[in-house]
């Protein structure tokens, strides 16, 4: 992949002959690696495959919804499509997306360490993920599953005639891979920071990943237990959730959302970390209000554990419990607003460059604004009665998880690609992909807000005629979006073979990964342990005003 000779490019940067990519060839050197960077690459390849599969399911869903009748697929097939779209995208793409790839690559480098605290556990997490992924794939090939990714009981535990057990077990395993990743990050951030790398000199990317890891560690065991209880009821008739066996179906929802709501923050916090890095770099300016951005990540992680009941305002949970969940959900708006305002203020009087990462920053801000603000409609109990389980919800969480996390993932990939691959990609195509994704995304999901308020329920195979126009718009948008996602896949792979050698620090950014580590980094990241003497994003001395 990288050339063997010293490659001196225009900026006079001499990349080292040996880096983590060419330090060992052959499948075995990759599959048995303990290098966090190689494991990050393994994860990148694996989640890209799952993203493509999940995207294919999404495309088929949008095709079905082009017409009201439900004529493209059988209703059972359709139910399996949206279930598997959700399962694949959430468990096998979104949860690992940024942490297991960009995070895995950068956390040790950013704190100035040679590797994560537990390199073998890091490799184990990938294998657990792959076994989970393989089981999920077997479940899909054997006919799929039709419960919705939420596995609500008693449908999943008693009534469904699909491969619930194997797919739920696949989700169970995937959960363990994220527990292992979270554990590794927390220990690494606590114990392996380079000399001088104090907590308040850490890049905000690290703070975001620290907050994410707390959720992974504390939340994921609960979904594991919940899935096991559901599987026991299905396999052996233990009565946990089915009222005919003496169980309580609403209990399942409490347990499920106790993890799955915090999991939404696993699917957004890392992208916020990416944003903080990118906003600072494209503005060549310190992140405004560093401490506030850092602590808002932790605040989101903590508050995120106390809002699960907002998924259950119409489920028959206690009204007073609902009130508590509602007010705490409203409070989540505050740290989200703090972040947004601080990013905006970072750009104020900055020196803003128009490159691909900047395009992604702009797109992210636009989509995250809509996603975050529409959350206010759903924390709102009186309004949520009408909006719950409609397309409004579908639009909202796609704005957060796809508009936010996927935009952040793609933006981060473009930002750190020169570091990860050592190669540059064509800027024009990078910008084009950001524009396509932004436009395609809005065209796909904005009409769904209107559909939701009009009353179209989610997970409908056929729908009344009056909803067709907006569904056609949504399907049209999805094709633009698909193009926007396909494009980076092509030119990033192209750049590995044909791209120009990347300089050490192509964007003139601050941070150990840019200023000290090579492009691509050597196996142990640094020749000697770096000593940190300044705050993050120290582009110049702070002037009082």
């Amino acid at each position, binding site marked *: 992949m990288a050339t063997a000779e010293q490659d001196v490019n225009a900026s006079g940067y001499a990349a080292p002959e040996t880096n983590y990519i060419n330090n060992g060839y052959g499948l075995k050197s990759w599959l048995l690696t303990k290098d966090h960077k190689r494991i990050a690459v393994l994860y990148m390849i694996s989640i890209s495959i799952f993203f493509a599969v999940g995207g294919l399911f999404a495309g088929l869903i949008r095709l079905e919804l082009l017409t009201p009748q439900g004529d493209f697929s059988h209703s059972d097939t359709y139910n399996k499509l949206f279930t598997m779209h959700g399962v694949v995208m959430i468990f096998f793409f979104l949860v690992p997306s940024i942490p297991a790839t960009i995070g895995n690559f950068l956390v040790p480098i950013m704190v100035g360490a040679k590797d994560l605290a537990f390199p073998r556990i890091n490799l184990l997490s990938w294998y657990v993920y792959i076994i989970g992924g393989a089981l999920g794939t077997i479940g899909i090939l054997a006919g799929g599953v039709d419960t919705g990714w939420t596995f*609500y009981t*008693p449908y999943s535990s008693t009534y469904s005639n699909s491969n619930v057990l194997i797919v739920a077990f696949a989700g169970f395993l995937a959960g363990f891979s994220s527990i292992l990743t979270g554990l590794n990050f927390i220990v690494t951030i606590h114990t392996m920071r380079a000399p001088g790398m104090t907590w308040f000199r850490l890049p905000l990317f690290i703070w975001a990943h620290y907050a994410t890891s707390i959720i992974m560690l504390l939340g994921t065991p609960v979904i594991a237990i919940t899935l096991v209880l559901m599987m026991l009821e299905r396999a052996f008739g233990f009565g946990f959730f089915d009222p005919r066996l003496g169980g309580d*179906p609403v209990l399942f929802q409490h347990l499920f959302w106790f993890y799955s709501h915090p999991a939404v923050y696993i699917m957004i916090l890392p992208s916020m970390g990416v944003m903080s890095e990118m906003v600072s770099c494209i503005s060549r300016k310190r992140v405004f209000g560093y401490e506030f951005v850092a602590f808002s990540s932790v605040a989101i992680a903590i508050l995120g554990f106390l809002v699960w009941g907002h998924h259950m305002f119409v489920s028959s949970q206690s*009204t007073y419990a609902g009130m508590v969940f509602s007010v705490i959900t409203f409070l989540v708006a505050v740290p989200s607003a703090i972040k947004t305002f601080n990013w905006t203020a970072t750009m104020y009087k*900055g020196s803003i460059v128009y490159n691909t990462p900047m395009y992604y920053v702009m797109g992210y801000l636009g989509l995250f604004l809509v996603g975050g*603000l529409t959350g206010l409609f759903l924390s709102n109990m009186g309004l949520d*009665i*009408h909006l719950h389980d409609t397309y409004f919800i579908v639009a909202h969480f796609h704005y957060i998880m796809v508009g936010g996390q996927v935009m952040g993932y793609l933006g981060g990939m473009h930002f750190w690609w020169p570091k990860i691959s050592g190669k540059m990609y064509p800027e024009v195509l990078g910008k084009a992909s950001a524009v396509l994704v932004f436009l395609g995304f809005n065209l796909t999901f904005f009409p769904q807000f209107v559909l939701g308020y009009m009353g179209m329920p989610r997970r409908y195979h056929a729908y009344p005629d009056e909803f067709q126009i907006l569904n056609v718009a949504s399907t049209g948008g999805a094709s633009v979006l698909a193009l926007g996602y396909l494009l980076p896949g092509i030119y990033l792979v192209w750049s590995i073979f044909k791209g120009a050698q990347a300089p050490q620090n192509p964007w003139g950014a601050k941070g150990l990964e840019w200023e000290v580590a090579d492009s691509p980094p050597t196996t142990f990241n640094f020749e000697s342990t770096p000593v940190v003497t300044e705050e993050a994003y120290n582009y110049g001395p702070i002037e009082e005003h």
Partner: protein
Amino acid sequence: MWTDFPLFPEQASSFALKVDGIYFATVLLSVFFAALVSVLVIIFAIKYRRKSPDEVPRQIAGHIGLEIFWTSIPLVLALGMFVWSTVLYFHITTPPANTLEMYVVGKQWMWKLQHPEGKREINELHVPLGQPVRLTMTSEDVLHSFYIPAFRVKKDVVPGRYTSLWFEATKVGSYHLFCAEYCGTEHSRMIGKVHVMEPQDYQNWLTGGVANEPMEVAGERLFEQYACHTCHKVDGKGRGPSLVGLYGKSVGLEGGGSAVVNEAYIRESILNPAAKLVAGYKPIMPTFKGQISEEGVMQLIAYVKSLKAPELTSVE
């Protein structure tokens, strides 16, 4: 033109205006903040674009006053919205004392509704205008959710427990009834209509049918109303046998024997479906005893008699 492309569902209950009000206020608030941040970001991006590659801007660490400002404003707004939405929620979930009581059973994949006078319906609900109605609901199998967008009401229907919702219809008309909680194969066909009628019309409807209607037409209406057609499909691919051209024929029965399809057999099959089951089908049809009047059963029989097999069925 605008009516062809509505952005709101019809406002047909006493809640609709209140829910639309808080929706509209939240939209305004969101548009304000989205516009504020977008405009600022775009202005900054243009005004502060990098002029030379080695330009280093003045560094600003932060501003505590600004942080307090943009922490407290969203906090106050959020708490204000919380109070407003909670008051509305209590209003929507607290029925008045004088409600008309009706009962709902959800099952895969139909709604069974019962009026206090004993009248039963499937996938249709007739309610009087201007009268608060309270539904007590449960499910026979999995989770369902009873949703009438035009009324802005929704409540999950949960097996093993009773849930309830109430509304007061304010506009005569027919409105969608949806199942909003995913419940399996035919989830998207677990839909129906809510008919809001003038109180006098509602009384007439409760006590009788439509006058001067041929029996098979009335029967066809019942056939649709009770969702018979969802299983007894014309092409024979439904979960029940096709009824086309069946009248007068002899059918094989599950467990041996046969029966001639005559009036008595049809009546028995409606009121006690499992008694003589056609071979190859499962005993899944619910009884309609007490739901359809004897007149109704006769009308259905007349309709089944009228279903003649088309001449070309032998051409494969």
